[in-house]
């Protein structure tokens, strides 16, 4: 079962540069990009509280994922809080909260991404320990066979 996931990086640039990159097209393309040829990233970002940042990405037009982020807090250049919905390839969705913190350390940025608010019961049952997406897939498979 997951309660919180935390990721950290030190980036060799001051917080205002990192924040600016993260909230504009180039950085967002990099965040969701991959080196694979043909990889698609389409990002539309309305940077304001209540605004939506939608990213569609994936290896081909027929296999795309989508993340929809709603900005809940924008504290430039230190902090962003997003309410995120992941639309998964199997048709399921996952709602989580993501907080980005950009902290200055000796001219560099200590960037922290914290993910929380996992729907624990669902995750426990479907993802965390038991049967990842299995029930949803199963229901569809059973209905398809009926």
């Amino acid at each position, binding site marked *: 079962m*997951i309660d919180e*996931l935390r*990721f950290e*990086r030190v*980036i*060799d*640039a001051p917080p205002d*540069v*990192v924040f600016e*990159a*993260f909230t504009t097209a*180039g*950085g967002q393309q*990099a*965040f*969701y*990009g*991959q080196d694979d040829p043909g990889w698609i990233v389409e990002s539309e970002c309305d940077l304001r509280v209540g605004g939506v940042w939608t990213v569609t990405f994936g290896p081909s037009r027929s296999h795309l994922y989508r993340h929809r982020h709603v900005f809940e807090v924008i504290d430039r250049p230190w902090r962003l809080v997003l309410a995120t919905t992941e639309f998964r390839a199997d048709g399921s969705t996952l709602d989580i909260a993501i907080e980005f913190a950009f902290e200055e350390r000796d001219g560099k940025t200590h*960037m922290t*991404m914290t*993910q929380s608010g996992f729907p624990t019961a669902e995750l*426990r*049952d479907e*993802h*965390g*320990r*038991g*049967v*990842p*997406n*299995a*029930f949803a897939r*199963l229901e569809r*498979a*059973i209905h398809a*066979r009926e």
Partner: protein
Amino acid sequence: MHHSATLNRTFFALSDPTRRSILERLAGGPATIGELAEPLGLTLNGVKKHVGILEDVDLVVTAKVGRSRECQLGPAQLQEATGWIDAYRRAWERRLDRFGAYVEERR
């Protein structure tokens, strides 16, 4: 042929809501037949029958513990779940890596 037969049995095992409830309960940790029976309002024999079907397709494994039979999720399920979390974490790790590299390359 064998694979297909197993898949059919797995679908059958999972198609029953009581058996799905048993799996959901076991996702929270191991339980004895008695512990499974009570909240489901089933007899011990009823639960044994369902657990037997789940065990048959490796969704559940059981072991005798003292006078009880303890049930837990089968190894295939745990592997799948662990794989999911690892893949999820790796995907976000890679995003931060790429973003960090992008910012540093631009400087």
